[in-house]
């Protein structure tokens, strides 16, 4: 067999962050005209691998990357790699919504070459011809912002493939980085049809996904990473769903017992009924007094929207919350009403939505209790800062200097300060989104301890997170969401890191 060089060949790829190996000697071969899946859970090294290919990270010495037989210089030169035949479509598609389909399609050419006359009629006709070749129904004159999410994704993919053909002599390798989580099922079918059209023209596609079922449907072969190591490359047809999940998660799952804690007995402190919002619902759940309940799922499953919807940070369409003997409508709730009911919410976006980086830590912490700090003659900065210092001491904020701007603290210490901000109001129901994202190990333990204390003090705590280790360690119970609904509940001995991961990767099947 006179097989030409494979489309993409990676060997010995390692990447070290500090003392941790994010990638450990990974090898990957993508054949010409193949759809190749790349699978792994959070922290598997999947996104590090993509970032190395895109030139964001420099790999450790000893790696080799070859495109159609030509060696790619390392670190990968981000801008030139397209000429060698490698292109990316990320979840953020890189389209300009206010421009037309044609303008977006030809953006690269229009932006980089000086032309004193653009024949729009000819450009539109050319765009229409391109879409016809891929069997797409897109109006070249339409404004991209008015297209459906599916059409936008299709446009971004066609643009990437066309750019590859124009700039490299090769059919090209297209990396699709998590293209599907926010698309409806019908849209996924259209996307797959387009992927097949691309490979029919000779291109290769790397399909990065969490979703085992989709990988099984579209790919020819798939590579699985776990903890930065190559677990193996399998022929998709010959591999069952469970075999995939087992490789992604690690061990076979029977017989593992968790150290999880029993759900505190007692009356339910808060119960949500029929919560529905964009991409979520209906979801119902109940929290006992002193319970820490985890919510998780794959990207796009909607687990992260639930806390925001309950708080009214995002508008919900329907739902009721029973809390402390009161029944609250969730379709009309707003943050002031939620606060008045004893609900607090800590968003994941630390310096964008949770705290103001340019203002002092003391002001950030004091914001919800200004009325309490008020004296007869007004509010004094010294009081606010003394109060914040006292809370910072309890949570272990370092340095505990309330006059510093919040942005001067490390991620972990800023997060401790923001948790202190909400713990001080002694909430009945605390909603947190990824409370320890980007937080160092020591601060993580401090935050867990603080949340534990708050729960023992009687608060009900709801945590949205994809950090399975955190959920297994901290929660009494974990609910797994898929396509906006609760599909699994893990408690007691079933509550382990691996079991949560397994439930997440199985969840798409459960929801179907």
């Amino acid at each position, binding site marked *: 067999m006179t097989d030409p060089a494979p489309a993409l060949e990676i060997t010995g790829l390692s990447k070290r962050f500090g003392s941790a190996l994010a990638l450990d000697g990974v090898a990957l071969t993508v054949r010409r005209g193949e759809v190749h899946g790349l699978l792994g859970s959070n922290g598997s090294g999947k996104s590090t691998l993509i970032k190395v290919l895109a030139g964001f990270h420099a790999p450790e010495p000893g790696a080799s990357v070859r495109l159609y037989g030509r060696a790619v210089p390392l670190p990968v030169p981000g801008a030139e790699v397209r000429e060698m035949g490698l292109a990316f479509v990320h979840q953020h598609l890189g389209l300009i919504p206010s421009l037309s389909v044609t303008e977006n399609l030809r953006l690269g050419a229009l932006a980089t070459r000086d032309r004193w006359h653009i024949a729009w009629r000819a450009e539109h006709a050319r765009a229409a011809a391109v879409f016809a070749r891929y069997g797409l129904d897109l109006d070249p004159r339409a404004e991209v912002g008015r297209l459906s999410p599916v059409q936008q994704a299709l446009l971004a993919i066609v643009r990437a493939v066309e750019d590859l053909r124009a700039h490299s002599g090769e059919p090209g390798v297209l990396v699709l980085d998590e293209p599907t989580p926010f698309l409806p099922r019908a849209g996924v079918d259209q996307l797959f049809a387009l992927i097949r059209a691309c490979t029919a023209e000779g291109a290769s596609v790397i399909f990065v996904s969490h979703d085992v079922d989709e990988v099984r449907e579209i790919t020819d072969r798939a590579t699985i990473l776990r903890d930065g190591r190559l677990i193996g490359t399998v022929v998709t047809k010959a591999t069952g769903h469970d075999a995939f999940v087992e490789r992604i998660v690690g061990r076979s799952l029977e017989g593992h017992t968790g150290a999880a804690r029993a759900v505190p007995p007692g009356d339910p402190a808060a119960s949500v009924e029929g919560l529905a919002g964009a991409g979520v619902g209906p979801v119902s759940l109940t929290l006992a007094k002193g319970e820490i309940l985890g919510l998780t799922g794959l990207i796009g499953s909607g687990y992260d929207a639930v806390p925001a919807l309950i708080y009214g940070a995002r508008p919900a369409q329907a739902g009721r919350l029973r809390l402390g003997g009161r029944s609250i409508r969730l379709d009309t709730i707003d943050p002031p009403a939620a*606060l008045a009911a004893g609900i607090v919410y800590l968003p994941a976006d630390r310096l*964008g939505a949770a705290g103001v980086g*340019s203002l002092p830590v003391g002001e950030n912490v004091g914001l*919800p209790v200004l009325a309490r700090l008020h004296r007869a003659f007004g509010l004094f*900065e010294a009081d606010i800062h003394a109060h914040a210092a006292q809370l910072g001491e309890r949570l272990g904020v370092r340095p505990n200097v309330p006059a510093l*701007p919040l942005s001067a603290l490390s991620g972990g210490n800023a997060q401790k300060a923001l948790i202190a901000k909400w713990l001080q109001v002694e909430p009945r129901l605390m909603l947190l989104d990824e409370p320890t994202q980007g937080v160092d190990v020591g601060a993580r333990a401090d935050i867990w301890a603080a949340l534990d204390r708050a729960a023992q003090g009687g608060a009900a705590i709801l945590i949205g997170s994809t950090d399975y280790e955190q959920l297994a360690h901290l929660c009494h119970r974990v609910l797994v969401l898929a396509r906006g609904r609760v599909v699994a509940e893990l408690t007691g001995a079933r509550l382990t890191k691996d079991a949560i991961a397994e439930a997440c990767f199985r969840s798409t099947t459960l929801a179907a």
Partner: protein
Amino acid sequence: MTPVEDYERRIAALEARLRAFEGRLSPPRGARAPVADLGERYGLLVAWALLILFLGWFRPDQMFAWNSYAAMFGSTAMIVVLTLGLIIPLTTGDFDLSVASTMALASMLIAFLNVRQGVDIGPAILIALATGAAIGAVNAFFVLWFGIHSLIVTLGTGYFINGVILWISKSAPIAGVSMDLVRPVILTRFLGIPMAFWYAVILTAVIWYLFQFTALGRRLLFVGRGREVARLSGVNVVRVRAGALIASGTIAALAGVLYTGMRGAADPSSALAFLLPAFAAAFLGSTTIYPGRFNAPGAFVAVFFLSTGIMGLNFLGMPSFVQNLFYGGGLVVAVAISQLLRKRRPMD
């Protein structure tokens, strides 16, 4: 003890020491040298003193005469008031370009009602203030309900108001406003300085107290710096922003009242020239006293710093276009300094 346990124990001990070390090390990071801090806070006051000394070198008889300052303090009072109105929406993150027009309209309304329509001065003032509040409410409606940038809305409403002024005044000055207004504004003096100045001092104190010592002041600040943070912390962002625009309209109208009282007359255009000085003073003021924040004492100092410069240049016989150079240059320099304080992060 197994080797693993031993290692774990030793690692835990090391971590504890590391944390203790971190705790001791960290506080100085970010805590600034007190001298640099003082320099930043009171730099503009020092610059003001140096400016007086420098100009006094050339014109000692005028620059070191109390009368010069007494007159200047009185005649600049309404710019202080206008600037104080302006810093409220600036703090919540909105621009109000209509403040000078609102001031001019209020001034003209009082003269028109009092002189042409024979309305008593008291009701005329109240109508003028209510009109200022109404203009703020209109601005707030377009900014908040339609979601248009405040720069665009207030540019438009300001120009619209200019038209209204020309309409009601028939493009001509109106003189002969009741002495009941002129007397308490300019003729009555305290320590040799017209009362207009003392009204400005009182308003400065009020706004300073509001920004620095009330919960509302903190909410204004959070709305301006992090709208989403404020919203998720339970602050009614829309109400705060609307209130700020209404306050700036009302205070601008108050500046108009002082302006009419100072001159006993109103003319259709002269107040419009105060827009840039007010912005220059607001931004220059945000580099001093409470650096990095729009603040009342800073605005107060900045107005008089700029006015002292203008006064000195007049004494030196500079032509009047120098005013434009001074105010325009002052605005850009002030914003450039505040950008240095923000470490040149792009403004939003």
